């Protein structure tokens, strides 16, 4: 998985578990960047009666909010220091209208422009958004609360979970009002979506038995297409579409395209919980106290998942990217590089003999890729000047999107490996096959970027998880991840019963 349940501690705290981070120049609005930060992994659509939600304090009627919440952050480094100069913070509140029912909704949930969501929706979430601008060298910061557009209620509202065709009829009519378009061009959404990540979990974590080449595995099987384990799973998404001029250090639009000195940003998400959480057995309420400490982080996919050793994963989640030089060894000599030749005997002789530090992987994950190693069209690449080793998802905002809509028709889902400069590891689009890209990279496909003397093994071309993304998970426009799969229509264990076959 990209980062679903990637570390032992966060696997037990889904509300704070960052699952995927996407950052790309918006295909239908190329003067903006879209950032999608996903949380709450592996949601079965029929997950009632307590449907999935963001970590939040709870309000019952007019009482004070109680319980512990999660502070969600999207961080942007536009100076190459590894320190975010822009942070968007999100804090959620859960409101229960009727304390005397066990129901998530007491009837069909509807929406009207005059009255908002109907009172039949009993357990709902709203949130605040704050932008913090920080001078990375001086440390001074300014905080700006962001309000919903005029005419909206006091807080941003999430749409309900897609419970099913009786509870949430016309789901598109429920999710659309939760997309907020601000006068300065910022667009905000937070709520449940279809999980656009695609991965064959069953094969990857069964000793990397890639189904398309299973006959060559150490314990051989039959070759077969991969299976998308997330085909009918949902996720909770925090989505921003931000004008590029709001992301540059000088607040100006790019004038030199991919070569602009302000073109590259590094993006990472964090989730924080307060230091102390005390459970009161007399009320059943947990009260948090103290600073918000980082419990989850995510930049590039799969780093904490398959690069950082098991015993260090929770620690990695607590660390700021600016401190990442301590993890450089795991990137320079990845364990998976040693495993592949052992699991596929005879397939990777050149990789098995390669003992140098993986400068290509350090560039992809921790410093950015200099444009010169790809070609002139890559401009300054994703390189941030090499000032610091900091694992982030880097995006050259001056490289135009390959597709004009969010379904990414006509693009290569292998990104840079498929000669598509607008894809991973130049940022990440929802349709990028980051598992196959990462497998090929670790198998040696990207070593020649920094070491031209190396010849990748022929087997690298065959390395693939063999999974095709489901078009059902995407949509052409913001937030690009489609409406969530419905609960009634997607009982996970009974696909033959499924009247709305998404499985």
């Amino acid at each position: 998985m990209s980062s679903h349940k990637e570390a032992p501690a966060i696997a037990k705290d889904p509300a704070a578990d960052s699952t995927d981070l996407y950052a790309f120049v918006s295909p239908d609005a190329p003067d903006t960047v879209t950032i999608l930060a996903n949380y709450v992994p592996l949601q079965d659509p029929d997950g009632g009666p307590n449907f999935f939600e963001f970590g939040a304090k709870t309000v019952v009627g007019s009482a004070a909010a109680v319980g512990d919440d999660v502070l969600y952050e999207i961080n942007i480094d536009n100076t190459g220091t590894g320190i975010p100069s822009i942070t968007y913070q999100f804090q959620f509140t859960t409101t229960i209208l009727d304390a005397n029912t066990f129901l998530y909704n007491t009837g069909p949930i509807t929406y009207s422009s005059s009255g908002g969501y109907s009172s039949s929706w009993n357990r709902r979430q709203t949130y605040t958004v704050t932008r913090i601008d920080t001078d990375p060298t001086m440390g001074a910061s300014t905080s700006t609360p962001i309000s919903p557009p005029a005419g909206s209620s006091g807080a941003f509202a999430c749409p309900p979970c897609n419970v099913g065709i009786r509870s949430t009829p016309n789901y598109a009519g429920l999710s659309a009002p939760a997309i907020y378009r601000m006068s300065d061009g910022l667009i905000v959404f937070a709520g449940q979506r279809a999980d656009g990540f695609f991965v064959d979990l069953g094969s990857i974590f069964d000793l990397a038995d890639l189904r398309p080449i299973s006959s060559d595995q150490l314990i051989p099987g039959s070759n077969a297409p991969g299976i998308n384990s997330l085909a009918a799973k949902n996720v909770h998404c925090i989505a921003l579409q931000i004008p590029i001029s709001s992301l540059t250090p000088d607040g100006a639009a790019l004038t030199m395209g991919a070569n602009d000195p302000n073109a590259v940003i590094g993006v990472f998400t964090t989730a924080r919980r307060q230091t102390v959480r005390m459970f009161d057995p007399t009320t059943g309420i947990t009260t948090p106290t103290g600073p918000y400490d980082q419990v989850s982080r995510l930049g590039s996919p799969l780093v904490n998942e398959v690069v950082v050793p098991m015993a260090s994963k929770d620690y990695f989640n607590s660390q700021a990217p600016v401190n990442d030089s301590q993890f450089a060894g795991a990137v320079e000599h990845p364990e998976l590089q040693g495993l592949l030749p052992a699991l596929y005997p005879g397939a990777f002789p050149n990789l098995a003999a390669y003992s140098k530090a993986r400068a290509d992987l350090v560039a992809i994950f921790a410093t950015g890729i200099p444009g010169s190693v790809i070609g002139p069209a890559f401009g300054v690449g994703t390189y941030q000047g090499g000032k610091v080793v900091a694992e982030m998802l880097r995006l050259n905002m001056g490289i135009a999107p390959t597709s004009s809509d969010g379904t990414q028709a006509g693009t290569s889902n292998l990104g840079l490996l498929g000669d598509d400069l607008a894809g991973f590891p130049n940022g990440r689009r929802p349709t990028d096959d980051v598992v196959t890209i990462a497998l090929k990279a670790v198998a040696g496909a990207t070593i020649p970027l920094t070491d031209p003397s190396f010849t990748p093994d022929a087997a690298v071309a065959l390395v693939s998880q063999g999974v095709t993304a489901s078009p059902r998970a995407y949509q052409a426009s913001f937030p690009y991840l489609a409406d969530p799969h419905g609960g009634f229509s997607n009982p996970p264990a009974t696909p033959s019963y499924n009247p709305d076959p998404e499985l």
Partner: protein
Amino acid sequence: MPNISRRIFLRNASIGAAATGVAAAGGLGLLTGPSGADTPVKPSGTTPDAPLLEGSGVVAHVVDAKSGQISLYVGTKHVSYTNQSLAQELLKATR
């Protein structure tokens, strides 16, 4: 269940949700008390700048009773505090 009954059930349930919510709310508020401590500004972005509703109270963690090192947690703040006699006193109270 006939269609008409189902519609009535759904309509009644919706009305009920709005009516009973206020009545249920007060009890929980009494249990938890008022909230609303100030939110300190921190440069690292580790403290939310949006207004927070917080639980009241101070948590003291005696990190090392011998040296008197105590961590205090209040609202969204952490304060390191050293008081050997207080730390010893607290330790004594646990016996």
